[in-house]
């Protein structure tokens, strides 16, 4: 405020006093007199700002004004809460997944190493290759190797299954992680024949050792063998997975790894780059090594290279596109909300011209009035933001509770101060965004012209701004809705895929039967047979089978597959046909409802002594035996020796089954599925036994069944843990989780956008009808029918909608390109989706225009003209 004329307060106070006395003298009661004066008092209160406390007084004034208009205020706050809440919730997830620093020092120097084919297919690392990498590379400070494993912990009443990792000593140095108690492995301990030692997680240390410092030095029994604990890793150590509870020195197990460079036993590398070495440089270095190995070992290494991927990339690469999409979507929702609010504020500012004119008449500068109006927007935005933060807190809690496994670090996500800070920031930004234009326009009104022009329909500029905002809103909403429509179609395509089996009523659980406990394959097989027999007689069990791989889980053991009489490869570059081979029990196909389309499944007669047999999938038949009956033909996926002298072990094809989706729903490698009877255990499994999964078709609830099965297993061998109880329906849900999540969230945001945009259209047309009442009255007077007027208003609305949709379509066409990676079975330019969304938006927009249009037809021409 500029300086006040000294004494003006006194003058005005006196005036009110005089007025009060006059009213009282005229017989007015005290209450009535006060009421008559309250308008003056309010106006004066708004002028009471003193220099120095302008922000505080602006806020006070804003609060007073907002309280006086509860309807307006609640609409604004609700819109803001929805927009800011959604934005904050998504930011929270993006923040935890992508922005917050990971606990490993020098995260940007940590890289993952994988062997890949030059066509980009990832395979795990052959151990001899790794030894050469370690010897020859110039770029890594530390280079470690690891693989995941499942361990069974015994010693207490019931066997327990733990997620473990075999890790070389350099895994810890590459990650830069120290033990919180004890130490990590030394290189000497990471050797064959070294004493058996283990590192445990903080979680295990707390749950099993009551966080006792004396835990280090104690012994635990893992897979039937004693290990001495040498260290406890902090909870921040979440490598290789967040559920890892035990690390064992990889060196103890290297002798069990094949010395063949063609064998890839699930090993992966992790390394820390030397300071100053870029990832590109490391890739080149490793590729040079790979090329040397290729020349030295053409049989196994042809076409193989090394991919060096920053660890951070590895973590976020799958989730990033979805998060970016969602972040974009909430930004759209927020923008639409802002456009709506800007419109509301503009309409309101017109209604407040008198008040603003007075303030300017008082000598308040335009800047000052602008500040005051903007303060109001920001105060509302902060209020809406507080509500939004609550909403975000609730949404994030619900999201975390749904445990989306595809989102890294999801278990750590909470709404905290940092997130609240973000909500605050975004609220203020929002307040400025939607308040700016109205405040500029309103504050540039000056007393005389504004009062002169306070009549209707004269603020053509305002109408243009409002119309532009509506066009923008419609465009944004269309883009969002098209995105939502595409993800819905994509999800529908995904869920209608033929899985090859029927997931309903199938419960699965895992068995880990350590080699150490059953070194003889025959005894190992016998153990599984007993489990099967006992499970089969549990009341309520319809069928039960075992398999070494779980559909949709991501494959299992792979090998080359050949048919008898197949010409030997002419060169090493010739592509081999790969298969996913599985050890299966006779009732597995029946349990899973996998159709046997030719021949037979396995029977109890397919024993170790019987002729070796196999069941194959249809694709293999099409490839190997396109023109003849496959039954009775021989194939081999097991070989003794390697290279040109490799001897195949032939199996007779006895049956053909439908293709089962093993690698998830979307991208499947072209591996042929081959099944062998468990009793005729594939030779690859003799030394390294798979963890078998039990499949049970039953109407029983999973928990009840699991209890019965545990009892059955325990009666055979109490040292064997049963774990991972999941229904096949849950596997399907997991496989569709990301798609479902994308669809649910985008559809939600799309619906929100639709509602906001229709409110926007409705609001602008209603305002227009109010402003043009006279014009409409004149039209009626000149003989226009109600239909004409309706057409005028609805036509105006639909013209805006059409403009918005045209722009929206162009933007959607471009933007949805980036969704390609997130879509399945639907093109980003799917005409049906576009047509459907345009129809939907147009219909809703029509309704939003029709209501104000109808109101316009009710205008009384006499009344409006009399007003003039």
């Amino acid at each position, binding site marked *: 405020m500029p300086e006040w*004329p000294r*004494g*003006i307060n*006194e*003058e*005005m106070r*006196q*005036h*009110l006093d*005089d*007025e009060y006395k*006059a009213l009282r003298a005229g017989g007015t009661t005290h209450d009535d007199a006060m009421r008559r004066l309250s*308008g*003056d008092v309010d*106006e*004066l209160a*708004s*002028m009471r700002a003193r220099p120095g406390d302008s922000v505080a007084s602006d806020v006070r004034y804003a609060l007073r004004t907002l309280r006086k208009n509860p309807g307006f205020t609640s609409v604004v706050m609700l819109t803001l809460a929805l927009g800011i809440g959604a934005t904050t919730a998504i930011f929270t997830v993006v923040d935890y997944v992508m922005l917050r620093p990971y606990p490993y020092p020098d995260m940007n120097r940590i890289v993952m190493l994988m062997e890949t084919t030059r066509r980009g297919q990832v395979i795990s690392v052959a151990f001899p290759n790794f030894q050469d990498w370690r010897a020859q590379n110039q770029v890594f400070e530390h280079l470690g190797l690891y693989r995941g494993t499942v361990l069974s912990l015994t010693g207490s009443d019931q066997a327990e299954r733990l997620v473990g990792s075999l890790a070389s000593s350099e895994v810890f140095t590459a990650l830069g992680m120290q033990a919180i108690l004890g130490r990590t492995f030394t290189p000497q301990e990471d050797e064959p024949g070294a004493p058996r030692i283990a590192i445990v997680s903080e979680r295990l240390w707390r749950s099993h050792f009551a966080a006792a410092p004396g835990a280090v030095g104690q012994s635990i029994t893992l897979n039937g063998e004693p290990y001495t604990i040498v260290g406890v890793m902090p909870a921040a150590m979440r490598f290789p997975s967040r559920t890892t509870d035990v690390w064992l020195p990889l060196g103890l197990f290297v002798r069990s790894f094949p010395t063949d460079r063609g064998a890839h036993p699930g090993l992966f590398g992790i390394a820390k780059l030397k300071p100053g070495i870029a990832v590109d440089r490391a890739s080149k270095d490793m590729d040079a090594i790979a090329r040397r190995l290729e020349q030295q070992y053409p049989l196994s290494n042809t076409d193989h290279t090394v991919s060096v991927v920053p660890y951070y990339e590895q973590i976020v690469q799958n989730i990033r596109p979805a998060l970016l999409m969602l972040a974009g979507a909430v930004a759209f929702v927020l923008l639409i909300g802002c456009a709506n609010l800007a419109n509301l504020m503009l309409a309101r500012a017109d209604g407040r011209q008198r008040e603003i004119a*007075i303030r300017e*008449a*008082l*000598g308040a500068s335009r800047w000052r009035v602008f500040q005051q109006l903007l303060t109001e927007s920001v105060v509302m935005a902060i209020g809406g933001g507080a509500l939004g933060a609550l909403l975000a807190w609730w949404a994030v809690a619900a999201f975390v509770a749904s445990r989306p496994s595809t989102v890294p670090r999801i278990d750590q996500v909470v709404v905290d101060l940092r997130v609240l800070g973000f909500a605050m920031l975004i609220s203020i930004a929002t307040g400025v965004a939607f308040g700016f234009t109205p405040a500029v326009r309103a504050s540039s009104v000056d*007393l*005389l012209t504004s*009062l*002169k022009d*306070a009549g209707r329909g004269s603020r053509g500029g305002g109408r243009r701004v409002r119309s532009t905002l509506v066009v923008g809103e419609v465009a944004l909403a269309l883009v969002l809705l098209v995105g939502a429509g595409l993800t819905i179609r994509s999800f529908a395509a995904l869920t209608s895929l033929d899985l090859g089996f029927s997931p309903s009523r199938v419960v699965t659980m895992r068995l880990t039967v350590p080699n150490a406990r059953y070194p003889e394959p025959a005894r190992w097989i016998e153990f599984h047979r007993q489990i099967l027999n006992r499970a089969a007689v549990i009341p309520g069990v319809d069928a039960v089978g075992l398999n070494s791989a779980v559909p949709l889980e991501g494959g299992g053991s792979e090998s080359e597959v050949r048919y008898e009489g197949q010409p030997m490869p002419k060169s090493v570059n010739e592509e081999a046909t790969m298969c996913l081979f599985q050890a299966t029990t006779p009732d597995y196909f029946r349990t899973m409802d996998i159709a046997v389309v030719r021949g037979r499944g396995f029977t109890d007669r397919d024993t170790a002594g019987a002729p070796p047999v196999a069941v194959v999938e249809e694709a293999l038949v099409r490839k190997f035996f396109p023109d003849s009956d496959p039954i009775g033909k021989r194939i081999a996926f097991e070989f003794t020796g390697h290279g040109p002298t490799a001897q195949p072990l032939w199996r007779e094809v006895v049956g053909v089954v439908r293709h089962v989706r093993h690698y998830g729903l979307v991208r499947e490698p072209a591996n042929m599925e081959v099944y062998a009877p468990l009793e005729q255990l594939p030779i690859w499994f003799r030394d390294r036994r798979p963890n078998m999964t039990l499949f049970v078709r039953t109407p029983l609830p999973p928990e009840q069944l699991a209890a019965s099965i545990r009892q059955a297993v325990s009666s055979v061998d109490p040292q064997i843990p049963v774990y991972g109880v999941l229904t096949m329906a849950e596997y399907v849900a997991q496989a569709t989780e990301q798609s479902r999540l994308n669809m649910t969230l985008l559809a939600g945001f799309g619906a929100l956008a639709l509602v906001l945009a229709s409110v926007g259209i409705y609001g602008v047309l209603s305002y227009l009808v109010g402003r043009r009442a006279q014009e409409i009255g004149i039209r009626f007077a000149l003989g226009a029918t109600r239909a004409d007027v309706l057409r005028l208003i609805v036509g105006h609305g639909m013209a805006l909608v059409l403009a918005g949709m045209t722009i929206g379509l162009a933007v959607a066409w471009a933007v949805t390109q980036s969704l390609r990676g997130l879509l399945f079975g639907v093109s980003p330019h799917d005409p049906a989706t576009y047509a459907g969304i345009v129809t939907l938006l147009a219909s809703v927009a029509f309704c939003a225009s029709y209501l104000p249009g109808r109101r316009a037809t009710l205008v009384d021409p006499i009344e409006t003209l009399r*007003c003039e």
Partner: protein
Amino acid sequence: MQYMKAQMLDRELKKGSAELLILSLVEDQPRHGYDIGKLIEARSGGVLKFRVASLYPLLYRLEKRGWIQGRWIEKAGQRRRRYYRLTPAGASVLASQRSTWREFVEAINRIAGVEHA
């Protein structure tokens, strides 16, 4: 209807005639704000009414332009009041505003054929 008329006239008044009214009222004798407000209301038969928040700032602006001059006057037994009187500059503005207004009203009359009251 009375209310609507008042509103419309109020708007017309503010078009510029507010200044004219105030200047006219202090032409003959100095008056204080409350007096001015009451006179406007009374002489217009209640059609024109100023609110406190409009009147005093306007007085202040007129004073700042040098058209009127305010002065606190102490009177025995009464509280002090600020009286405004017309300055020579104000007098010439008043004269020119009067003639503009007259022309305007005559123009309206010629077109609309409204008779003088």
